């Protein structure tokens, strides 16, 4: 196969520079919030973890809640890393923490170290992500500059709830993954 490629490939050309972009560089928090609203998610500004606990108590009091954050141990399970990921199928609300967010598309970046199980962001019915307002970059170029040569086994951008429009282009939230996505934005 490689021999066939060598025989037929064109002359080599130079790699271009990656275009510069300042399109989303201002009002990053507002842009992130707008973008998340547009794709069916929501931003809830919080001061500290007790605000998040209060939100969970109010909305998921009778449900199974998991979190990777020891600060939220009062409202969710924190020891679930040794169970099989399949046993998370009945989780109603999962709360993870993101490394950073992206203003242009409301994506948040997590690596497997922050997920405990790679299936965690997908298998819960509703997803919450804690994000520091200071950790929002303008666009995807800045996102990859920030990721740099980081080591991970699995890295993930999540932008909003799972969705499909396969049936007559009607948008439905909650295809296979979470039906809602809430970003707890910490000042």
């Amino acid at each position, binding site marked *: 196969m490689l021999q066939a490629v060598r025989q*037929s490939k064109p002359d080599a*050309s130079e790699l*271009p520079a990656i275009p510069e972009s300042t399109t989303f560089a201002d009002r990053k928090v507002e842009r992130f919030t707008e973008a998340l609203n547009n794709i069916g998610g929501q931003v809830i500004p919080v001061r500290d973890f007790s605000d998040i606990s209060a939100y969970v108590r109010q909305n998921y009091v009778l449900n199974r809640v998991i979190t990777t954050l020891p600060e939220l141990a009062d409202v969710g399970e924190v020891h679930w890393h040794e169970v099989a990921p399949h046993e998370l199928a009945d989780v109603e609300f999962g709360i993870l923490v993101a490394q950073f967010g992206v203003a242009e598309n409301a994506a948040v970046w997590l690596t497997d170290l922050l997920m405990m199980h790679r299936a965690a962001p997908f298998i819960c019915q509703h997803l919450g992500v804690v994000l520091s307002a200071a950790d929002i970059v303008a666009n995807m170029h800045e996102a990859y500059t920030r990721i740099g040569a980081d080591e*991970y086994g699995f890295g993930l*951008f999540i932008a909003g709830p799972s*969705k499909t429009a396969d049936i007559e282009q009607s948008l439905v939230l909650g*295809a296979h*993954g979470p039906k809602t996505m809430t970003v707890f934005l910490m000042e």
Partner: protein
Amino acid sequence: MTLQDHAERADIFNRDEERVDWHDQTLWFVRQKRDRAANTLPEWEALREAASQIKNNVLGNLDEYLVQFEANAQRNGITVHWAADAAEHNQIVHQILVENKITQMVKSKSMLTEECHLNGFLEHNGIEVIDTDLGERVVQLAGEPPSHIVMPCIHKKKEEIGEIFHQHMGTEAGLSDPEILTALARADLRERFLTRRAALTGVNFAVAETGEFVVCTNEGNADMGAHLADVHIACMGMEKIIPKRAHLGVFLRLLARSATGQPSTTYSSHFKKPRTGQTMHLVIVDNGRSVQLGRPDFRSSLKCIRCAACMNTCPVYRRSGGHSYHNAVSGPIGAILAPNLDMKEYADLPFASTLCGSCSNVCPVKIDIHQQLYKWRQVLVKEGHVTPAKAASMQAMNTVLSNRRFFEVAGGVGRTMMKWFPGIVSNSLNPWYKHREMPAPPEQSFRDWYAENRK
């Protein structure tokens, strides 16, 4: 059974005029969403140019990037396989399943496996395959191929999908609400995700520098499959390589905006290493790609990132439907990829175009699609892959247009004949007359008019 060409299949699609109108308008609406998304970025054209140049660089160094990618992926713990053609690809996937004693697999969207007809091969060998992308699941249950690479069941109405679910999943009859139908499929497929030990995914981008590969979905089905299975098999065409991780920034900004007008897909999953206890296989497939790479006029078709913008904008695709292209990848890009695989079988496809150029204008990696459609026509005529009638009429056109005197006489004869015997052109033997009235013939040729009026 005689094989039908694009025009015959399009005729069948056009029997239901209301549906054709709906299909046409729905895809045009997606095209408009793409425009709005592109217009939010002043740097859009610079991004397209960068993406195009990165892909040119990839084609010129493809062997080196593949070697680099393989070494890095293996270092990450991924087992890399090479498949020269579809048959070898299918055997490799089957072998992996046999070695792991697996007879049931979930699969997320992969146009490559459609191209290789993997499902049929595995089912023939006793393996059950469940497609998990909602649209793909619908067409799988209906026993049809996808009609669009991003929206696989865009040719189906919601009532038909309700009926398919009723027939195959035992759901209530008469359902048509997309929200209810999606919820039913979600519950059914969740059960499969939780019980299947193998998951197959496609690959959107494979990064030579790091040995990781990226899969983009909105539904989350690729991840639900891969993270719950013991064995993850990812299949990629060899052209999916990009040099560096930072290049993902360029392509992810273009992909979803071009495809559906979203600023990004919901999930952009970067698979670098198998999780503990899991095995990860990656199959790199040629299947004619190295041949296409050797065709200077057509090699840039390998830059395609499968966004389907060219389909959504194409006036022929929108009114003929994806199935009329009888190939895994339909639309304008499919029509320049398919003849490489089999010139005889796909000789009709490059003619299924008005050459309007809209496809090239929206392509995020700047493939000159309409130019290639035009060039394929010449290759196909030269190689004798068009009907004798088409070859003869093109020869006649060539004779008339390349001889000035002949052109003048033929024009005069044509005007007179059309005037006195309009039935000669206004009849069902003239394909142009279908759905159209022929214009009234002019009194004189432009040349004569110009000679009289030049002062």
